């Protein structure tokens, strides 16, 4: 909450939930908005029989803040009857790396790239573990000087950025006097990508080589030099320096423990925005004594955050000064033109849909969820009409709809019912689902739909506890995925006319 207040003060909201208005509108119009509901899938997870649990959003951390993130999973329908969470099959993961970059004006920023998107098959057969995502950090909560992705201080003409790692290091033997040297060039950066293969990934986000961001303005002790000595007075370096909020750095090594873990970190100079008052005094810059933050300092764990958490919380892939470069700038300029692909992505091709359904035994899962369910008619007069009932998801009032190729609808074949229930019977009219099938519907020679159009039919057979014969029920879902959620969607549509009751106890 405090962070939101900070952003409001500075005229911005965190970009995690960016109101669509901000595509084309100014930031001021964003202020009136409040974030919507929490994502429903935030808690989605699967588990293995040995107790390991894999939640979407969980991560493992490797070298140089590289990480592997769970983005989804396939579950085993045969093993998950009634289980919560379901049994894991394959994990869908994303491998990300963080690179130190340099804006055209020389200022450093960090950029995260998606390097490897794929699957870890049969996760329960492996010995891989993940950690659950942490609670959101309350960034910069204590001092109000929020780090925002402002473009005030960003270079206006910045069009591209260079990874610092690619620049040759001229001299590896450095003197202790760093005056006049470009400290960014001195970081022991190597190609982060090549050695990921041999890198162990674990739950520790703060570790040697990890990129960090300083949460709030604070004083930090200057680290001892490698030989263990404090900075010599002749070096004219203070024993304690003030680190601005939002300063970036990189952990060099562990520096002991003092009620919490301490870290020796290399601070990236000029990686944080100048405070507002400092910006006003740019003209009188020479008069303002700048206290250069250089070299290595000792920081406690509570003062720093591993950079991936910052990226996640603010929904970005770059820190300050990277916002006007490369893909960030093009994303900004795209405006609302990207909405169609976000709002309505291309449907799953039919072949892939069926293949995945077969691979993950979706039909068995659907059968388990649907067979035995009982539909109790809310309106007894429906049967007397002996006509097909059409129910539309968009119409919750339950009024009859016309069959529409693009609507999610259910068709109940009351016209197939032989005989009618006795008018004198006062008990509930119940239909039990006895059989389930999933069919692919593709209209032939239709000029109404594109050639790649298809719909998934959830075909249910109903056995009435009155009258003879069976009643077919088809719920048609245009371009839907074949999975157990079809049963939930069908019961939602049917609930306008039926009361849905679970199967009888003791029924298989």
């Amino acid at each position, binding site marked *: 909450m405090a962070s939101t207040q900070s952003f409001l003060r500075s005229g911005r909201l965190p970009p995690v939930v960016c109101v669509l208005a901000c595509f084309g509108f100014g930031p001021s119009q964003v202020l009136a908005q409040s974030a919507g509901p929490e994502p429903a899938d935030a808690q989605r997870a699967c588990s293995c029989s040995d107790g390991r649990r894999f939640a979407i959003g969980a991560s493992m951390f490797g070298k140089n803040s590289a990480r592997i993130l769970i983005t989804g999973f396939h579950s085993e329908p045969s093993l998950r009857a009634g289980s919560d969470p379901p049994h894991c099959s394959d994990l869908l993961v994303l491998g990300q790396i963080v690179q130190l970059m340099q804006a055209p004006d020389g200022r450093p920023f960090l950029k995260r790239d998606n390097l490897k998107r794929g699957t870890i098959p049969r996760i329960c057969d492996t010995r891989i573990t993940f950690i659950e995502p942490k609670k959101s950090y309350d960034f910069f909560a204590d001092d109000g000087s929020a780090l925002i992705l402002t473009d005030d201080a960003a270079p206006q003409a910045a069009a591209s950025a260079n990874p610092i790692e690619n620049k040759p290091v001229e001299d590896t033997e450095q003197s202790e006097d760093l005056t006049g040297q470009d400290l960014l060039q001195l970081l022991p950066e190597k190609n982060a990508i090549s050695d990921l293969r041999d890198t162990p990934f674990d739950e520790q986000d703060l570790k040697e080589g990890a990129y960090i961001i300083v949460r709030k303005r604070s004083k930090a002790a200057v680290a001892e030099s490698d030989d263990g000595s404090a900075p010599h007075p002749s070096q004219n370096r203070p024993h304690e320096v003030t680190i601005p909020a939002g300063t970036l750095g990189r952990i060099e090594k562990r520096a002991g423990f003092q009620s919490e873990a301490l870290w020796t970190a290399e601070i990236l100079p000029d990686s944080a925005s100048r405070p507002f008052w400092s910006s006003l005094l740019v003209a009188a810059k020479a008069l303002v004594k700048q206290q250069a933050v250089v070299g290595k300092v000792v920081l406690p764990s509570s003062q720093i955050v591993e950079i991936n958490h910052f990226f996640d919380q603010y929904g970005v892939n770059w820190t300050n000064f990277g916002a006007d470069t490369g893909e960030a700038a093009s994303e900004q300029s795209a405006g609302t033109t990207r909405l169609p692909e976000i709002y309505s992505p291309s449907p799953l*091709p039919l072949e892939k849909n069926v293949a995945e359904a077969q691979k993950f035994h979706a039909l068995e899962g659907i059968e388990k969820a649907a067979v035995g369910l009982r539909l109790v008619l809310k309106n007894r007069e429906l049967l007397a009409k002996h006509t097909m009932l059409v129910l539309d998801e968009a119409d919750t009032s339950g009024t009859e709809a016309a069959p529409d190729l693009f609507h999610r609808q259910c068709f109940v074949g009351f016209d197939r019912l032989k005989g009618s229930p006795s008018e004198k019977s006062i008990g509930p009219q119940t239909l039990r689902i006895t059989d389930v099938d999933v069919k692919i519907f593709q209209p032939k020679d239709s000029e109404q739909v594109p050639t790649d159009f298809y719909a998934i039919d959830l075909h249910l057979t109903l056995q009435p506890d009155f009258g003879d014969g069976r009643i077919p029920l088809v719920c048609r879902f245009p371009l839907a995925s074949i999975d157990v959620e079809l049963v939930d969607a069908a019961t939602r549509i049917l609930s306008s006319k039926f009361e849905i009751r679970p199967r009888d106890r003791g029924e298989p």
Partner: protein
Amino acid sequence: MTFAIGFRHGLAPLTLFTVALGILSTDRALALDTTRCTCADGSSLETGEISYSIESDREKIIRLEATGSALDSRCKGIWVHRTRVHTRGTPYQFFLQRKTLGERRLSGCEDLDEKFVKRSKTYNFVFDSDSVSIREMQPVSPPKTSHLGTDAKASSNQNVWNAIIIDDEPLISDENDDKRSPAESRHEEFKRTSWVFARRNIKAHYLGLRRDPDQSHHIVPMKKSRVVEAGQLGQIEAAQMDRAIVRFYDGSRIETFGRAKNVVRRWYDKAGGPYREVKDDLYTPVRAYIVEVALDDIIEINDYFDQQKTDRTGQ
């Protein structure tokens, strides 16, 4: 019969005339008007089918010429009527006007660049028609993935990066993936930038863009909502099967006469205010807002014009 007559002595001129008449009548038969015809690729066309492009510009098949029998008629000529929708006014006060661009004849399906579709999506539902059970479908052969032979038990946190099987290829190779029409093309009339008209007062929610940790985007409804008044004009930003994101313009409604702010706006505009009438300026945020609405609550502007038998909105 005609040729038999032609070989009789002294009847040569008559024969020639008759043959010519026969050719003419045959040619006329080739160019018979029809309401439906078939293209060489098996697809068919019908009069009344429509193709939409940006900003509700539209082409409509008004006449078809075909050869062959009534049962198997091949498309020979396709007459298309074209219209374009223009904005008139300023963002403070504007209306839409439909202009006819004329008719053109396409000589066969080969000249068709656009996809023509029927407007109506209703159909006759029949149980078990045009559908096949996935039980009856051949199991798809397992994809060629290199992980099948690897020992999963050997994977641990020490080598997890290598355990990831890259999804660089689709599970099933589909050559048509690139050509696949974008989702919005399912509703041809609700393309991005299509003009729409609010049928009734709609309570609509503002939207937000949420990023997941993997940087994928999702659109989420916000708590804040507003009422889109009946008759408001807007443009489609994106459409799903049954919903759409629409940018509505306040300036499209006739405001109450004498409303002080409207008077000031008009004066400001006439006095050379900041706005000049340029069509693209309607995309500016001047008195516009973006919300999500149900497709049933809006009507595509050409449908509105057709129903009202007019070529302009209000004002």
